């Protein structure tokens, strides 16, 4: 079963990305989650301020700077993992280094892929 691990970070957490300790923890996490054959894909994302949002309103294009939802925590990255069940997915969420710095991990089951 595939799950998305959606990692949200606070602004302080995003600002702390330069911390070598944090980087080393993330390098290790990525090595472990891919090394165990669990991760299918994913990526860290740049600061939410770099986002551009597109939508159609009444057939009209709207392009705006910034994310569409302005929240305290921002989407900072994601993993797509393939594990037997939600328990395993939660184990990987618990290992995510962001959580030790106030980050949040949303675990969301993926839709079945059309064949």
């Amino acid at each position, binding site marked *: 079963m595939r799950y998305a691990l959606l990692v949200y970070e606070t602004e302080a957490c995003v600002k702390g990305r330069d911390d070598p300790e944090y980087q*080393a923890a993330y390098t290790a996490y990525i090595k472990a989650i891919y090394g165990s054959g669990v991760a299918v894909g994913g990526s860290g994302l740049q600061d939410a301020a770099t986002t551009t949002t597109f939508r159609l309103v009444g057939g009209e294009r709207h392009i705006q700077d910034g994310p569409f939802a302005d929240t305290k925590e921002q989407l900072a990255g994601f993993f797509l993992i393939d594990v037997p069940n939600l328990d395993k997915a939660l184990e990987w969420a618990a290992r995510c280094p962001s959580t030790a710095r106030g980050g949040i991990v949303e675990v969301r089951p993926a839709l079945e892929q059309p064949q």
Partner: protein
Amino acid sequence: MDPAELAARASYGRLLSILAVRTHDLAGAEDALAEAFLAAVTQWPSEGVPRNPEAWLLTAARRKLVDAARRRRTQDEKHVLLQVNVGDAADGDFFGDERLRLLFVCAHPAIDAAVRTPLMLQTVLGLDAARIATALRVAPKTMGQRLWRAKTKIRDARISFDVPAEELSARSFAVLEAIYAAYGSGWEDVSGRAAASRGLTEEAIWLARLTVRLLPEEPEARGLLALMLYAEARAEARRGEDGAYIPLTEQDPSRWDPHRIAEAEAILTEAARMGRVGPLQLEAAIQSAHLDARRSGARDDRALSLLYEALVQMAPTLGVRVAHAVAVSKTEGPARGLERLDAIEPSRSDDYQPYWSARAHLLERIGRLDDARDAYDRAIGLTEEDGVRRWLLARKRALGATADVSGANRDGM
């Protein structure tokens, strides 16, 4: 835990076990008991606390059970009425204790092993599903469903609350295993978080004490209690003033709890006198040897290795095999320890943090530093505890960017 909470906990399991053993309906018994507690909260303040509160609660819960059967208009109303009143001594001062049967039902082979621990925590201790889910790192909804399914199965499949004599030992072990799993959920929590998300170490020790009382002839019950007390004795010593993780070999023995150690020693001695060794007693003996070594400064690696050898013969679990490999490395050198680790199937070790942590350490000792760095990363990436993560990061950093040390003589092998 405060005394009121302890008393409520003791009453809860005792009362629930009596209700459930009669009706085989755990969920129904839980509902009835919850209603009885609610009635007590509303009535006792105005009418005064009854002379025997437990008997009052039991009588009230029985009435609720009968009422519930009546509401369902099932033909088994008479049945329920008879069941709940069998051997009724609730108006007296004494009634029995059926918690042992309850423990055995929770560990019945027909109950999924993954739900045995939560089922025990909920029925014997009255913990709510959300708390159990958080401690065992399971989604609350999933936990609720699993518990509900297990209770439905016990009722509908009429799982017996009696244990056949020939199954007693296997079932006792399943009970102890489930209690140990509850303890494990909290042991990892080095940093000692808030009560709500903390593990279940206290609850597990409470259950183990209860099991020792209920199964006085089972040395493994004592073995488990001793094992957990040894571990608990040094729980505080695992973190420094700044919250940093401190491994056993670097802990300050003066920070260990001497009362818990003394109690553990006494209990393990009692178990040993029974003359039937089991894996839990061996694990406790290993803990005891580790503590002795730290206190006396003279580690008997040979003795430890032999204990692990016996343990791996009896119970070759993943954790035991990894610990055994480390013990072997101390007597026969890191290369021999690594051989033991290599023998573990990758599918089992892939996401097992202690395996990678041990591997990193042994690779470091034989000077395969690139491989050690890789293994440290795997271990760090598999760590949930920030304190442990930082400790491993520091160890990896200490390797520096040094290239592999050629040859294998770096560690006096």
